[in-house]
């Protein structure tokens, strides 16, 4: 009886511990060729499991060349940050983590937990160090520098039919809306049930303003030398987005409509524009390649720059990684010209390495490269500069539409929350 119980409980232990078990058995059976086989752990959100870095053939090739086995830890998508926070806190650290740089600074305490990669051999070949860096150091790795762009997603065919050109300022934008509305199509789709969607316009507009007028603005905000309420232009930008709604250029029930309806709205040609990222264009193209969507900059001021999301899906090495050298070897391997080229070609990435060429891009992406990236008319959105959780900002933005808050009140609310969070975080000046 007792023996039976014990065997059950042992079996339970075994299954709960499958990671270490599988790594042990791999080490035992396959170590014929060169020395001891090492297994490194790579933790990645389940939602990112089609990432190029964890493709099976890549991992197999790596193992064959280096005798290092990469074991994947797939984390449930909605708990990724919590699980990683816990793993880092209890020293059950994976050797490599795939995560987003911007969220890593707010969720995972980047400086404390992750290795600085400034001296890795591949760093010298980077075309764009910024998308991998924070606090002045390279903290992460990627083969792409295409961060995803944010602006106004628009239906090119509709613009052509109605003889519209891309608006260069807010007045022109309203005029475009008016003409689209007159043709019986909803000009702008606002899915503000998802409060983050209300952040696309201000995130690009604020950043564009700062880049052109006060380059040190976000440093000042993050050091409490300035307050969010100090910049009258921010109020203007929030008022603009509200005006688009108030003038009747949007779907009527903006607080009930959610982002997951967006693809359908574009497929059915119900709407002409939306403040969103270029990932939406990709999603629509997957469903119907005959719909031509494009992206232009949020027209908050004359000739505004296109917002660039902070890059996502980078690889990080925790300071406490048990196999630091092997983890670095993995990055070196992906960074080799041949491997990086293969990934960049397959995924149609804009290459980050000077010796890896960017393949032919989809039409919309090439347009973005020609019109915004090459002439350097892009600006990192505010998200890139935010050191604390932003969900309360999104709620404040939503409140402008729900609770009739003025732009001033929205910014005041966020300013209070922001200073509280920064104070809690222990940032000096708050």
């Amino acid at each position: 009886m007792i023996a039976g119980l014990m065997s059950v409980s042992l079996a339970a232990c075994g299954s709960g511990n499958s990671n270490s078990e599988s790594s042990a058995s791999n080490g035992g059976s396959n170590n014929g060729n060169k020395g001891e086989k090492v297994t490194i752990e790579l933790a990645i959100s389940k939602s990112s499991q089609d990432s190029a870095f964890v493709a099976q053939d890549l991992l197999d090739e790596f193992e064959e060349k280096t005798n290092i086995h990469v074991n994947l830890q797939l984390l449930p998508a909605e708990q990724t940050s919590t699980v990683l926070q816990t793993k880092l806190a209890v020293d059950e650290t994976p050797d490599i983590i795939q995560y987003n740089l911007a969220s890593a600074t707010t969720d995972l305490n980047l400086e404390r937990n992750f290795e600085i990669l400034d001296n890795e051999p591949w760093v010298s070949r980077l075309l764009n160090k910024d998308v991998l860096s924070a606090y002045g150091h390279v903290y992460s790795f990627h083969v792409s520098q295409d961060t995803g762009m944010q602006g106004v997603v628009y239906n090119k065919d509709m613009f052509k039919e109605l003889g519209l050109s891309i608006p260069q300022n807010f007045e022109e934008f309203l005029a475009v809306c008016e003409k689209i509305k007159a043709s019986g199509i909803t000009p702008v789709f606002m899915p503000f049930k998802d409060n983050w969607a209300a952040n696309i316009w201000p995130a690009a507009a604020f950043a564009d303003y700062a880049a052109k007028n006060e380059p040190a603005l976000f440093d000042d905000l993050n050091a409490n030398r300035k307050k969010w309420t100090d910049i009258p232009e921010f109020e203007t930008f929030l008022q603009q987005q509200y005006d688009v709604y108030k003038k009747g250029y949007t779907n009527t029930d903006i607080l009930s409509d959610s982002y997951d309806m967006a693809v359908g709205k574009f497929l059915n040609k119900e709407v002409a524009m939306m403040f969103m990222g270029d990932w939406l264009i990709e999603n629509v193209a997957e469903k119907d390649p005959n719909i031509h969507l494009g992206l232009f900059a949020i027209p908050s001021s004359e000739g505004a720059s296109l917002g660039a999301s902070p890059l996502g899906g980078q690889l990080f090495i925790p300071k406490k990684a048990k196999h630091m050298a092997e983890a670095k070897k993995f990055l070196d391997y992906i960074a080799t010209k041949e491997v990086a080229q293969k990934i960049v070609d397959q995924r149609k990435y804009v290459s980050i390495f000077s010796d890896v060429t960017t393949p032919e891009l989809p039409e919309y992406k090439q347009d973005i490269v020609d019109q915004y990236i090459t002439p350097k008319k892009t600006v990192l959105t505010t998200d890139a500069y935010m050191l604390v959780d932003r969900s309360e900002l999104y709620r404040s933005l939503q409140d402008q539409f729900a609770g009739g808050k003025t732009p001033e009140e929205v910014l005041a609310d966020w300013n209070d929350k922001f200073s509280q969070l920064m104070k809690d975080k222990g940032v000096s000046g708050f």
Partner: protein
Amino acid sequence: MKISKSLYSYYLIWPALIIYSAFFVLPAIVGLFYSFTDWRLDREVIQFIGWDNFNRIFTDKTLILAIKNTFIFAIITVIGKNVLGIALAVGLNMRLKTRNLLRVIFYSPSILSVLVISIVFTPMLRSEGTINKLFEAVGLGSLSQAWLTDPSIVIWTVAAVSIWQHTGFQMAIYLAGLQSISKEYYEAATIDGAGAWKSFLKITLPLLLPAININLMLTLIGGLKVFSEVFVLTGGGPGNASQVVGTIILRAFGEGSWGLGTAINTLLFVVVTIISIPLLIFMRRKEVTE
């Protein structure tokens, strides 16, 4: 006598006690400790900060709104679920042909997942949704509302959905209570000339008190601990208009303010205890036996 004394030893409660202590008592005590600290995502050293977290709960206007919403939700749902629950139970305790069918129909919402409820109700509660269309169709267009997006009514809407879902469960308990009341009382009352309303007040209600007590406790505690209905229907929005204590705790943890989140949790625990234990004692005293 002797057998009944030695049949079960007190040692048999040990397994339950150990599990209960390990998974409830211990975490509650540890939680109490952490609620007085500045435990945060980015703090390496956890510091004791006294009552700071609690001071913050009572000065942050979103947290105050959440507490207010929680009480509104709890009070509406306690009244709604119990009044409707008794009414349904009394109705379905009568000799109706469709009695069993109706019982199943009224009980069935409470076995649905709250996610399903959200998927069903969210489109119905839109401005141009079924409910407003229904009002317009019967000429009551003026009653139509932005049910889930108007900050001033959203918590009431969520409470109404919760009442719709759970009344059937309360009804089942009341039905059980009703069936334990002997018919003789009603026969005697009829002979004495008491009407239906009078026998309800003088016989049904007093003898139903044990069921009322358990239902009041269940709905009150459930109401104060509300989370899932709000989370799936509004996510606490629009803005923060429908935040309740449960969703605020999630928000605090999401922001990495673990100490604050634990403090709110502790506060909720204390409030639920302070309200429910005296209520339980008070109600017990009122119970009558047949």
